[in-house]
């Protein structure tokens, strides 16, 4: 069964450093997303990406965040200068129009 894969599973970084979280969405999907989940809280939408551009972003997704689809398979989330409050699980997801959204297993980001 096709799945969304994410790497790394755990990333520890120092405050102020840049991190790149990587995802391979399901191959025939058209919509790509990043969500995050702070420990013990609900899953929050960050950004959606369609047709090689951002289609929607939340207020969390400020200038420190960016997304890229560098080739036909990868989808990345970059945080330029990490803050302590960026510590969370980051989930990549993908879907087709009007279809089911599938999530990866997540990257646990710890900012120290």
């Amino acid at each position, binding site marked *: 069964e096709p799945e*969304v894969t994410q790497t790394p599973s755990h990333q520890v970084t120092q405050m102020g450093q840049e991190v790149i979280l990587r995802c391979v969405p399901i191959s025939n999907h058209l*919509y790509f*997303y990043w*969500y995050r989940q702070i420990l013990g*809280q*609900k*899953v*929050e*939408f960050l950004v*959606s990406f*369609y047709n090689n551009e951002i*289609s*929607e972003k939340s207020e969390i997704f400020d200038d420190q965040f960016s997304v890229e689809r560098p080739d036909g398979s990868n989808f990345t989330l970059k945080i330029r200068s990490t803050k302590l409050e960026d510590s969370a699980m980051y*989930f990549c*997801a993908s*879907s087709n*129009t*009007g279809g*089911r*959204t*599938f*999530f*990866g*297993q*997540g990257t*646990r980001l710890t900012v120290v």
Partner: protein
Amino acid sequence: GESVGLHLPTLSVQEGDNSIINCAYSNSASDYFIWYKQESGKGPQFIIDIRSNMDKRQGQRVTVLLNKTVKHLSLQIAATQPGDSAVYFCAEVNFGNEKLTFGTGTRLTIIP
């Protein structure tokens, strides 16, 4: 504002019994709803979905009911098993932006 919320934060059910998890939503324009299961340290796992033009949908051991009059969604799990222990989230989708709005989650514990 728009919100998706859950009535009960925790639910304990005897193994073999049926469980019902409830969800209230406030956006009457939502087109589509999904139930996800999340085990500790893992990503949300798709369980079942339902479109707004339907009242009921059945899967394997799971049934989702949608009551648009009172904006209520429920997930029924039949003959619960220990592996059903997890946090369950409902999420709503508006076609056009495709993003998910998650509720806060219900923790289901199956008692052996």
